Structure formats: structure tokens, C-alpha cells
């Protein structure tokens, strides 16, 4: 069986010739090879973004090259991954005309401008990880269909906005309200394709960490991350973080749209045929200082560094192993930016022999959730969280 290898990036400068009516132009298209079969991708720059790994172009799906996660704990806006489902994304947004509508089972339906949202409600900030449900799907063993991502469909940012609970309170929930659905400006191209709409229970919608965010890391949301407003659901997978959010509907029943009822489902229990909507993120950790196939000098003190996060209890401990899990060494945890954030870990190690080694990383949460050594397989390739094993060369 193939050892599950963590992300390494090889940037090949391939050149290809593009010919046009006016002659020929030489263009350099940088590509990256993700460490799984059929993993060649273009590295492309999109509006408001640095060069990212393109999974698909229409609609855009871009993942963050893994070395970016070694730069700091907060993912810069221009490095943050992009994930759309439907090709009818807005190409123009007039901030003056933009309205957030709140309707359904409420006493006072609302239609709020961005300015009203900012002035009528108290603002809050929270540092939280947004991770795609299918992050790391390309490593699934066996392979499964869907977006073939390495581990770059995640990011950690400081989100600023107003509490969804405060807005719902202003609208006045009916006593029968049980669920709340969220729709953004993006639309399907064909009328028969289900619109992308997600839902939370009223109980969840009222939790204090759930925000309607208009800022990310001190700036307006990047266009491709949901400008001008998105739902932020700390601890939950990115599928709930609806972008370009403009419609909130309060319901007196469970929402049964395609993207809740049919898509984004996980087995109720491992291996079970019965499914439930995906929800809270499972615990994960990564080595970021050394990518797959990195070289490390023998008999020299080497600093290892990485990140860990879970679904919102916070990280208690991260351990590493350089002997295939026989022994584990505790690492030091860095600054605590809150329970929904990436947590940094570091440690120093000296390798005494030359040759190939694997560095394994394993995190434990405040709720004593521990990463399994291998990801528990599910046929949608969701919530990968087995111990990541990075191959390095001791030279």
C-alpha cells in the first residue's frame, strides 16, 4: 500500500507556445505536482490573490500552496483558498444596492444595507479556521470522485462582523422557528441545478461565535471569499460558510435542499449506509516547516514547526514521532488565538542516521479527541484527519 504522503510541491517551469492571429507568444505556465496520481495543476493568479493552485476554472476552485501555512498562524487574504460550486457567481456587486434579507418565520422581516448592518449591530471579531469538507480528498485510499485537493483547502483568519443571533433577534423569531437557511448571490447556470443553500438549526444559529462577517484580517472580504458578506460558522466545515450572503430564511421545519439533504453527507457511524449532514470539523495537525521530500542535516539540531486545530474545543497537545509511531515526543504549543484558530506547535529534534525518515504528527483536543493513525474511509472523501506522515531525507 502506498504510504500516505503529505503535501509536497514541485514547481516545474514548463513553457508552452500560444499562437494567435498576431503571431506567437511564449508564455511560461508554472505548474505544481500534488503528491497523488494525476496531481498536476496550474499555478495561477486570480483577482485579489497571489499564485494559487487551480483545481477548476469555471466555477473557480483554488487551493493554497502548502508552504504558505509556514508563514504565520493567520492565512493572508490573498493566500486564502477559494471554493465555488456554481458557475453563476456574481461578476459585479454594487455595495449600495446590496441588501441582506431576513424573512420567513419572523415577526419583522428585514432588508439591511451593509451600512445598516454595520451601524445597527455591535461588531465582534473571532479567529477561526475555514476548511473545505473535502480538504485532502486526493489522498483518499482508495481514491474517490470529487474535488481532488491536497491539504491546501483550509485557512485561518480573523473574521469581523455582527452576530447572526443579534440580527435574528431584531427580526423576532416565531415560536415555531426551528431552522435557518442561508443563500448567497451565486446561482446555477441551468434552472434544473439546485441552488447552493445551506442551513443550521436555530439553536446553532444563535450561538455567539456565528457571525455575518464583512471583514477578514482587517480588510473587506476578498471578492472570491464572499464579498461583501459571508456566514462564519467557527468549528464547522466551510460548506456552511455561505459566501455573498444575501438571504436568510427562518423555517419551521428541517431544510431539505439538495446541498443539505443529498450532498455533504457523512456516514452516521463509520461504514454505515445511513448518513447525516457533515458538521463539526474533526481534529487535524500538520508539519509545515518541512514539506514532503525535504532534506534535513544529520546530527544537527533541527526545529520542526506545524499547526493543529479541531472543531472548537482547542488543542491540548501535539506529539511527533520519527519512528513510525513507536514513540511519541511532546511539542511546545505557541500562542493561543482562541479555540477555533490554528495553534502553532514547535520542537527540536536531532536525527542521528542518514536515510529516509517519516515525521508523524498527532494532536489531541481539549475534549480528548485524538487523531486516528489512518483516516477512517468514507466514499465522499470528507473530513480526512488521519495522522499526516511527511517523508524527509536525512543527509
Amino acid at each position, binding site marked *: 500500500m502506498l504510504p500516505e504522503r503529505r503535501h509536497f510541491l514541485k514547481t516545474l517551469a514548463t513553457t508552452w507556445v500560444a499562437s494567435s492571429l498576431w503571431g506567437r507568444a511564449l508564455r511560461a505556465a508554472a505548474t505544481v505536482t500534488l503528491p497523488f496520481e494525476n496531481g498536476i495543476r496550474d499555478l495561477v493568479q486570480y483577482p485579489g490573490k497571489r499564485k494559487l493552485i487551480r483545481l477548476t476554472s469555471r466555477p473557480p476552485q483554488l487551493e493554497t500552496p502548502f508552504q504558505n501555512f509556514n508563514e504565520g498562524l493567520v492565512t493572508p487574504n490573498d493566500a486564502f483558498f477559494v471554493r465555488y460550486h456554481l458557475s453563476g457567481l456574481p461578476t459585479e456587486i454594487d455595495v449600495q444596492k446590496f441588501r441582506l434579507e431576513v424573512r420567513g418565520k419572523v415577526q419583522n422581516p428585514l432588508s439591511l444595507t451593509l451600512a445598516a448592518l454595520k451601524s445597527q449591530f455591535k461588531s465582534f471579531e473571532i479567529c477561526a479556521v475555514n476548511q473545505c469538507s473535502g480538504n485532502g480528498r486526493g489522498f483518499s485510499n482508495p481514491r474517490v470522485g470529487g474535488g481532488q485537493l491536497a491539504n491546501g483547502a483550509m485557512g485561518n483568519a480573523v473574521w469581523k462582523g455582527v452576530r447572526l443571533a443579534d440580527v435574528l433577534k431584531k427580526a423576532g423569531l416565531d415560536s415555531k422557528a426551528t431552522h435557518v437557511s442561508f443563500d448567497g448571490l451565486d446561482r446555477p447556470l441551468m434552472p*434544473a441545478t439546485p441552488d447552493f443553500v445551506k442551513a443550521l438549526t436555530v439553536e446553532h444559529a444563535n450561538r455567539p461565535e456565528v457571525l455575518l462577517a464583512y471583514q477578514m484580517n482587517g480588510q473587506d472580504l476578498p471578492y472570491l471569499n464572499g464579498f461583501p458578506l459571508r456566514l462564519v460558522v467557527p468549528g464547522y466545515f466551510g460548506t456552511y460558510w455561505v459566501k455573498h450572503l444575501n438571504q436568510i430564511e427562518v423555517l419551521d421545519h428541517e431544510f431539505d435542499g439538495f446541498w443539505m439533504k443529498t450532498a455533504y453527507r457523512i456516514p452516521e457511524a463509520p461504514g454505515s449506509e445511513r448518513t447525516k449532514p457533515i458538521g463539526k470539523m474533526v481534529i487535524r495537525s500538520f508539519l509545515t516547516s518541512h514539506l514532503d521530500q525535504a532534506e534535513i542535516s544529520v546530527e544537527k539540531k533541527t526545529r520542526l514547526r506545524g499547526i493543529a486545530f479541531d472543531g472548537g474545543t482547542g488543542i491540548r497537545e501535539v506529539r511527533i514521532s520519527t519512528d513510525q509511531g513507536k514513540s511519541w515526543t511532546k511539542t511546545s504549543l505557541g500562542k493561543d488565538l482562541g479555540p477555533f484558530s490554528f495553534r502553532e506547535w514547535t520542537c527540536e529534534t536531532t536525527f542521528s542516521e542518514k536515510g529516509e525518515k517519516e515525521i508523524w504528527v498527532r494532536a489531541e483536543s481539549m475534549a480528548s479527541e485524538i487523531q486516528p493513525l489512518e483516516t477512517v474511509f468514507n466514499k465522499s472523501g470528507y473530513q480526512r484527519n488521519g495522522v499526516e506522515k511527511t517523508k524527509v531525507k536525512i543527509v
Partner: protein
Amino acid sequence: MITVAFAATAVATLNLPQETSRYIDGKNSHLVQAYCLSCHSADYVTTQPRGQPRAFWEAVVQKMKKAYGAEIPDKEIRTIVDSLTETYGRKN
């Protein structure tokens, strides 16, 4: 580019880079071109793992039709699935 003009209006516009991905030429790939480009780019298909069996591509095409409403005539489905299996079902 996000052009936010702070005059009377503030309009953000999005200009995406040109779509460059293409379906691979192969037997009956004209049907894939005809039925599989209206909703999304070709890279949705070309980035899938290679070497998958016919059942994988059968499931994809059925999902496009039943879940997403792709207008694919029933009589073409078999040929489209064959074409996808032959072109993308092989190992790289």
C-alpha cells in the same frame, strides 16, 4: 480585479482569467464536448483520478443528469460513459 470606486457608487467587479482546460480528444469525445461544458469547465473531469472503472464514470454521468439536471438524451449516455472510461479510465 476588484475595482471599488468610492464615488457615488461602490461597485466591485470580477474579471476571471481565461478558461484554458480542455477535454482530451478521444473516441466520441465530441459528445463529451457537447454535453459536459455548459455548467462547468473540463478540469472537473480531467483532474479526477485516472484508471477508474466504467462504474465510476457511469455514476458521474447519472449524477449530472439526475442531481444537476444535465440535459443528456438517454440514448447518448452509454456512448458518453464509454468515451469517458476509455479516455480517463486509463492510468496516466
